[in-house]
């Protein structure tokens, strides 16, 4: 059953007198307990698709088409109503964990302020939940972590904290925008495992935006390939990677190093 269903989504940005089409008739679904990977080169519109779901499209842009979230139409939803879904039902994790946290606010504050805002829980209760959720995302020493500041953590730990912040309100949809691109390869595996676990345990519908087919091959269930704002191919992971139908998908996969040779 699809949690989010995107149909004919169009996004254009006007800069000066110029109108640029970022998304053109994009359609695909996100399902609960499934990771949907969106692949594409930079400028293909994959990040903008995620931001459109969050209602965070850039200023001076127009969005048309439909994003259905469990019966609620997100395209054209008043910003106040969208704001009530953000953080609570729709959560997001960003590419660079070192810039996604405010350097002057403590971790505990930053991963609970939306919990307190949406659920009206007390500060003490929020902190208790924060510690529990940091444990769930395997951040070392959660009790101490809540009173620390972002610069005291490594990139991989911060990304785990970002996931904790995303799931603390028990959302239905998680958008992960290149969550491992800024991380070292040995750290990446741990984050991917965490993403898989969270998706399965919490029955999340995950949108994973990435340009890395290695990442998609590891965790995605279905894959959407985008090129200059268009969806060129959609399919299940294994067939799409081993036998791509579209020429563009094929050239992307063939351009990767060691596509045919793998380490022992």
């Amino acid at each position, binding site marked *: 059953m699809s949690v989010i269903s995107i149909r004919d989504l169009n996004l254009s940005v006007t800069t000066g007198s110029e109108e640029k089409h970022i998304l053109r008739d994009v359609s695909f679904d996100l399902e609960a307990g499934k990771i949907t990977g969106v692949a594409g080169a930079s400028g293909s519109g994959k990040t903008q698709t995620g931001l459109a779901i969050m209602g965070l499209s850039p200023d001076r842009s127009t969005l048309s088409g439909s994003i259905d979230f469990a019966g609620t139409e997100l395209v054209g939803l008043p910003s106040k109503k969208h704001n009530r879904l953000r953080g609570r039902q729709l959560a*997001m994790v960003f590419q660079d964990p070192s810039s*996604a946290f405010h350097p002057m606010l403590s971790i505990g504050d930053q991963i609970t302020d939306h919990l307190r805002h*949406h659920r009206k829980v007390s500060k003490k209760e929020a902190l208790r939940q924060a510690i529990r959720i940091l444990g769930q995302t395997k951040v070392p020493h959660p009790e101490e972590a809540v009173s620390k*500041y972002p610069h005291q953590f490594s990139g*991989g730990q911060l990304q785990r904290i970002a996931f904790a912040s995303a799931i603390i309100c028990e959302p239905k949809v998680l958008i992960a925008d290149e969550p491992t691109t800024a991380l070292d390869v040995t750290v990446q595996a741990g984050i991917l495992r965490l993403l898989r676990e969270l998706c399965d345990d919490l029955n999340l519908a995950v949108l994973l935006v990435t340009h890395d087919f290695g990442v998609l091959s590891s965790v995605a269930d279905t894959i959407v390939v985008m090129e200059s704002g268009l969806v060129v191919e959609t399919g299940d992971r294994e067939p799409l990677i081993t036998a791509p139908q579209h020429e563009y998908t094929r050239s992307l996969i063939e351009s990767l190093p060691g596509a045919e040779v793998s380490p022992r």
Partner: protein
Amino acid sequence: MSVSATDQQKNLRPPKIHPLLRFILVRIGISILLIWGVTVVTFLMTNLVPTDPVAAILGDRAAADPEIVAQTRERLGLDQPLIVQYFTYLGNLLQGDLGVSNQTRVPVLESIGQVFPASIELGIGAILLSVIIGLLLGLLSALKQNTIVDHAIRTLSLIGISAPTFWIAAVGYFVFFFKLRLVGGAGRLDPWMTPPPRVTGLYTVDSLLAGQMATFTNALGHLILPSCVLALFTIGLLTRFSRSSVLDIIKLDYVTAAKAKGLAPRTVVFKYIFRGALVPIITVVGLAFGSLLSGAVLTETVFAWNGLGQYAYRGATTLDLPVIMGVGLVIGIVYIIVNFVVDLIYGFVDPRVRVR
């Protein structure tokens, strides 16, 4: 970026002292060095004067007598080498001796002590006005970027930093006092009022302490126009700076992340955006304080505000060097201390400096 903790431990030789302590010590060192530099500048300035200070002190008739001139030179230590004179000067400064006014024969430090509170009162009023109004306008302008509001604020702030302070003071005085009688006139109180008993030297505070409400409202009425005039330039400056500073923050990832959490727009603006923009703004407030002091010299003159600025103006018009150098020295030191405090605030506000 993501060096694992163990790697860092292995190759890191930790600093011997806590970074915050080190930060404070470095700031203190720089401030002391600067204050020393200020004394060198004022000393050199006094000694570079083409006009003979002896002549200025003695007046024309006495200066014609070479014996009296020689005696005076010796008495003033002017026959000593420059470096000895400097150390004498520095020694005097450390004892609080800033010299004696050529005109009034009153010690400079004593006069400065008398007029200083007046300037402080004006300065605090102006800095409060400029910080509050400047930051809010800058924030508003940035949040409404490229709208009518933004254009209006930007244009007005540009005009604000373009107006000559002393002229605005004169125009304001003419309009609001002379024509409209909305505010008090020249001076810190109406001529028939007696100043409140001196505690802090600030009339508004002292009158409240003494419970003299009439004096308080009168002092406030006199304070309001000069502070507004004085604040105009710094408001323009801070508006412009906080606008660009907020615009820098708005496009950062952590702001998008805060929005993606569905927080109330108010929370995003004040907790995330404003807090991030505040650090650079704090340092600029220190710098803006300098232009405020410049403006004070000109504003006080127009409003006959008996403060440091007017004292300096009288010194300047009569070429009373000890007075001018004394004021220069005191203002230079005040400015350095203010910026030292600003740096400290910065160090404590930012956890990247505070927490290791």
